[in-house]
């Protein structure tokens, strides 16, 4: 009877030890276990293709960096969809040297007169659309809606930045910069004017 009791106790101890060892073995085996569920985040990119190379001669005298918050709404039966984005752009004001008239520089001795083309917007593409920040979106919006927002941002930036004051500031700075440059080239009497 005593032996049977010892066997029972022994077996119980062995089972307990096995359970403890099994627990720690399983714990060690599963310590790095994890399950993730989600989409891939990385993008694929094709090589950058050069579409054109152009020799230009644009003097920039004033740069106007702008950011515009543009939004649009669309009413549905009971709800309202909204899309708001922040667009960034830089309008560059200056002169295009390819538009100078013949005889635009008249130099004699230590005097020089320079007639530059009228100050204008150097490049009509000034919005950096890839920098656009999303601000708010509810509902579903198409590429056409985004194109319309881009055009709206373009109009607003042109309206706010292409002002008479900025054009005058660009002209004044251009005059100053060219005067300094020509004086550093040795001309004492410098006159810089712009076509109207």
């Amino acid at each position: 009877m005593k032996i049977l009791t010892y066997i029972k106790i022994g077996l119980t101890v062995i089972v307990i030890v096995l359970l403890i060892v099994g627990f720690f073995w399983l714990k060690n085996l599963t310590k790095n276990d994890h399950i993730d569920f989600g989409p891939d985040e990385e993008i694929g990119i094709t090589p950058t293709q050069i579409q054109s190379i152009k020799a230009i001669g644009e003097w920039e005298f004033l740069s106007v960096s702008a950011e515009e918050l543009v939004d649009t709404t669309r009413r549905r039966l009971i709800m309202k969809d909204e899309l708001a984005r922040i667009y960034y752009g830089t309008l560059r004001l200056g002169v295009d040297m390819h538009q100078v008239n013949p005889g635009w520089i008249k130099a004699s001795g230590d005097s020089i007169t320079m007639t530059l083309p009228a100050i204008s917007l150097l490049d009509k593409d000034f919005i950096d659309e890839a920098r656009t920040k999303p601000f708010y979106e509810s509902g579903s919006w198409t590429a056409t809606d985004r194109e319309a927002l881009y055009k709206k941002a373009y109009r607003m930036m042109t309206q706010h930045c292409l002002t008479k004051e900025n054009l005058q500031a660009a002209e004044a700075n251009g005059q100053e910069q060219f005067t300094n440059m020509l004086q550093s080239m040795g001309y004492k009497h410098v006159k810089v004017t712009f076509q109207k």
Partner: protein
Amino acid sequence: MRKYVLFTCAIAVVLGLLFCHSRIVHEDAEAPAPVVQGIDTVPMLVTQVQKCAKLYTAEYRVHKIITHDDVLRLKGSVLQRDFNIKVPLGDRKIAIPMDAKLKAYIDFSQFSEKNIERQGDKITILLPDPKVTMTSSKIDQKNVRQYVALTRANFSDAELANYQQQGRAAIIADIPRLGILETAQANAAKVLVPMLKEMGYEEKNITVAFRKQYGANDILQLIRDEE
């Protein structure tokens, strides 16, 4: 009698609780309403005006297609065995074509007598280092193509903006391989030499020079990202 007392006490407790609750609700109602910070939907404008004297001499138009293959995946590790399973009917794909304009320029704001050497009829102009900047970028919205499985939501505006910003960064990273600085150096002479000829110098006496010939390693310091 005892039951009656207990019943009365219970009613008193319930009424007391109700009174306290209504009081709390009432006090909450009387409390001044918190000031709600409204979102101004009126278009906001921030501008930064900067005087400068930059001569842009080279313009590159570049094109890139950003693609994103958004596959839902169940991945992980069980009993030290890794697994990565594609979830069926969970695909989303998008291709975003974009165009960008890169321009190289020479900054004349620090130009002075130190940049000019004159020896008799000869003139040498030592130009500052050329720099490169992305002046504009445009997403070809009409040609954006996407496929969204029935079980998935459409691409959100935030996701699209994220992909576009990654594409923009990739174009900037590609600038050293485009050879724009060499073009800018060559074109600078095309602008300045006619100007100096008009001033009375003969073409053979004009030298337009740069500090050095720029390589792919230099250009990393010469890229100006406006972000």
